[in-house]
């Protein structure tokens, strides 16, 4: 029972570390797909911020600089697995098949943004910090109970690891050996509270030890490290019902949300440095070196994403608001007799 120090595979220049072996070509194809979702998420972020600034969207939480974590997680799960997001997961949801206009719909203040018809078993956005963890445990129990061979992946921020729900959840997951993966987006900030005022330990992955769960810390800007680590964790959870904890270390180079102004509390040098570690840039460098991405693709996928996002925005802006009756429709207070 240990926690691993930060695991990484490719350096800042996209160069594969000598110790790492790339198992298959398939992996590189996967990484290429993941990169596309990262780009899409990045473009979507910008659009949503623009919509918010012009009064056409509510408060929005971007995930700029953290795309690799979410895109990889969303991509690696099977269709029948259950993804349990918090609120910064657009890259994962896109990789799971969510239409981009749903993201706008949600942040635009429309409950229909949570209608994940692409993956109807996925949980909706979760705002109260860490409260999604117990849900994930309940789902994992249900999956194991019905002997489905599926797993649950739940995400949370570094700030969320301070909250009781997270520990209580891990504790139960381990006692009952549930197929669950906890994935922490350690972006160093919880709004304005820095990680050293959030936790007094050396690594958040260490928090798994309290429950007897193995924890891994991984470079959250390193698409290959994330890929390998998440793949391993999903396998452990799926095949051995071993709960898993992964801390992906990154940096929130965006504001917390559009309601925030990070310049009030961050240090410009750190910000600049963090920006230079951008996971999209690094993934491109790496895939180019592996001959799986070509110069013209930068532009092509950027434009493609722009088109998708533009179409989504139009759809969102042209959507009628819900009928007033919808406000009253979904409160369960009627008895019924289905068993």
């Amino acid at each position, binding site marked *: 029972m240990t926690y691993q120090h930060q695991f990484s595979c490719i350096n800042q220049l996209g160069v594969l570390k000598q110790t790492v072996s790339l198992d298959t070509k398939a992996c590189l194809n996967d990484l290429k797909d993941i990169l596309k979702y990262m780009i899409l998420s990045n473009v979507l972020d910008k659009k949503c911020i623009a919509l918010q600034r012009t009064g056409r969207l509510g408060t929005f939480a971007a995930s700029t600089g953290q795309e690799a974590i979410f895109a990889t997680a969303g991509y690696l799960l099977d269709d029948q697995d*259950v993804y*349990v997001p918090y609120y910064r997961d657009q890259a994962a949801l896109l990789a799971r098949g969510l239409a981009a206009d749903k993201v706008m719909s949600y942040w635009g203040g429309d*409950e*229909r943004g*949570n*209608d*994940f*018809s692409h993956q*109807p*078993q996925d*949980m*909706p956005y979760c705002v*109260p910090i860490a*409260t999604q*963890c*117990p*849900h*994930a*445990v*309940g*789902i*994992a*129990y*249900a*999956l194991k*109970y*019905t002997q489905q061979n599926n797993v649950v992946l739940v995400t949370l921020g570094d700030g969320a690891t301070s909250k*009781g*729900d997270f520990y*209580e*959840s891990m*504790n*139960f997951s381990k*006692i009952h050996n549930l197929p669950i993966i906890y994935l922490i987006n350690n972006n160093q900030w919880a709004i304005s509270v820095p990680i050293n005022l959030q936790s007094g330990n050396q690594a958040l992955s260490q928090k798994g030890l309290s429950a007897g769960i193995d924890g891994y810390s991984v470079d959250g800007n390193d698409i290959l490290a994330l890929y390998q680590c998440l793949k391993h964790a999903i396998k452990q959870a799926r095949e051995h019902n071993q709960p898993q904890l992964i801390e992906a270390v990154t940096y929130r180079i965006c504001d917390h949300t559009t309601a925030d102004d990070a310049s009030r509390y961050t240090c410009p040098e750190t910000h600049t440095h963090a920006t230079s570690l951008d996971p999209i840039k690094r993934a491109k460098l790496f895939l180019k070196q592996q001959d799986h991405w070509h110069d013209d693709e930068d532009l092509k996928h950027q434009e493609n994403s722009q088109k998708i996002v533009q179409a989504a925005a139009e759809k969102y802006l042209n959507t009628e608001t819900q009928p007033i009756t*919808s406000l009253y*429709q*979904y*409160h*369960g*207070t*009627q*008895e*019924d*007799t*289905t*068993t």
Partner: protein
Amino acid sequence: MTIDIVTAINLALSQTLQNSANTVLLGQDIGKCGGVFRVTEGLQTKFGTKRVIDTPISESLLAGMAVGMSTHGLRPIVEFQFMGFLYPALDQIINHLARMKNRTRGRLSCPSVLRMPYGGGIGAPEHHSESTEALLAHIPGLKVVVPSTPTQAYHLLIEAANCNDPVIFLEPKRIYRSVREKLDTEPTATSASQPRVVIPGNDLTIIAWGAMLHDTIEASKQLNRQGIYPEIIDLVTLSPLNLTLAYESVSKTNRCLIIHEACESFGVGAEVGYRIFDHCFNYLEAPVKRLCSPDITIPYSKMEHHYYPQINDIIQTSQALVEY
């Protein structure tokens, strides 16, 4: 053969586990121990540890797991050991259990039952005598029910377990063992959660539920001897409120008394009292009265009889109301 409320609930749980393979029970000490009040006695032996789950002490987790289980095909029935230990779970109950269906426009819903003993009068230690049902009643999306007899408890629990949405099931622990009757398992024509007239009468309407209902019936017997005949209504469902029966009754009796053991201010009696005032405004010959506990913390056991309304208080308040 007569049975008590504990046994009735046990039978309803057993029946539900038998009929619905997706039903699971969660709670502290509900396995071998059978629960601190023995409500789940024998169920783990019969249905196994996967379906009757002894949990760690994590109330917030239990409510949160109920959310995840119920959105994903299971029908969890959670036992909270005492109502005073429910509070850590309120976050999950208010922010998720009650809202998931609305949040997802009906895509995911939370069929689940949260059971817990409530109320005092058994000389238990601090925090074991809570009656804070008003907190739950204020939350849209929750149904809050309270049985007061074994047969009713049985049907109410079966109904709750079959409900497609969350139900808070409050068990009046003071009468767990004392109220006995022959169990009638035949489904009733009307829903078990409808309010009911327990004893008809013409002089005033008394509204109560749970353990206080039985004190009210007792007081009523004594009032009868003085020629006062209250109509007694068992509210059964605290939220959403259905007061049709109460309005009819008060329109006839012109007087109304509401009884509960929670403290008075901002209690369930405020809502019921307000509504009766409002709807029966032209029928009332006296103000609607409440008989509740004072606005103080529940005393430790030595003094708790100074807290809850006692049978004599019911008699006196009723007399005063009739004479108003």
